[in-house]
């Protein structure tokens, strides 16, 4: 087996993931998307991040 096969399998996996995501997610709407730059936008950053503290246990 050569590395090309591995990369192709990974690419296939990514394509499958995106297809599944497309089928089960809310449709994209670029008109409600945030501005290109967060800096200067006046909007708070809301994206998920691994360092974000978790919600407290209920």
């Amino acid at each position, binding site marked *: 087996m050569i590395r090309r096969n591995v990369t192709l399998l990974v690419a296939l996996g990514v394509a499958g993931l995106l297809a599944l995501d497309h089928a089960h997610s809310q449709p994209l709407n670029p008109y409600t998307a945030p501005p290109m730059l967060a800096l200067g936008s006046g909007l708070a950053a809301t994206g998920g991040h*691994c360092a974000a503290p978790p919600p407290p246990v209920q």
Partner: protein
Amino acid sequence: MSSTTAAPAPQDTAPGGLSRGLMILFVLALVLAVALFAGPRFGVVLLIGLGFGLALEGFRFGFTGPWRRMILERDASGLIAQLICIAIVALAAFPLLAANGAELKGAHAPVGLAMIGGAFVFGAAMQVVLGCGSGTLVNAGSGNAVGAVALPFFAIGSFGGAYHLSWWTSLGSLPVVALEGTQGLMITLSGLAAVAGLALLIGVKGSHRLPRRYWGAILVLAGLAILHLMVAGQPWGVVYGLGLWVAKGVVAMGGDLSGSTFWAAPGNAAQVQASLLTDITSLTDLGLIGGAALVAWWRSGLASPVGKLPARAWAAVIIAGLVLGYSSRLAFGCNIGAFFSGIGTGSAHGWVWFIAAFAGSWVGIRLRPMLGLEATR
């Protein structure tokens, strides 16, 4: 069976000029499509992610290898390059965060028992597969079979770690400590200089001479990380996106995430419903895979053979992948989210993560030959 036995190598065939030109157009078209259909920010974030992948694979730079060389050979050059890169990011990030705290956020997380344990275990597991958060993505993209096998299990582990994160954090955690402003920057730079000095002291003679490719990696990665903060409003991270991929799969199969404090939280639940093309860390993760694949293809056409490993080594890779994902969530990040972005934006947890993960790396290096991943050390 030897861990390094491989079939005879076919002749590497680098692609021609036309193929390369078409590939660049194809990649740019993908970025443009994301910008058009998801929004301009998401197109730019994907482009930044591609840049990270191109830089890490193109300059043959990473996080796991330099730590391994520091521990085994006392070659401090790679570790020093990482510290310089973080220092450059900090020089820009601290004033940006101080002046734009409402729009930008740092990678600030609490220090706690599970966080320290998670970082230690992550450090060990990353040495087993020779790939950290970014490294596993880059390895998978560039045709490394170990990285490709570890990646889906990394994602599953990340989902599980996030699922249980609130419980783990409740075991004992300090308030978030974040260095801020000029004083915070000075403390951070002094800390980085002190670690670099210690590394030079312990390291072999000549460790201070960084190869040219390291300087290229330092400048490109730091520039992209600063741009990422300005565009996305948050620092570069990896593992949130991987867990999200699995969360979306679970929901698609009819699973219910309401039992998880983490995944049921409004922001995360909304992201599970939204497209991956609107998630910052997913886009940079996909970019890392794509950028690394592009460099590997560009250089050699990916024609080199995949090394063979014994069955127990593959079992170890799968388990290490799960552990990488799970522990990185408990540790509030991997080498990128905690070490690189945490320290670069002033989080105390980044420093604690570094110490714990480095200690774990020492263990992981010794585990690797026992698991059949290299000749016994």
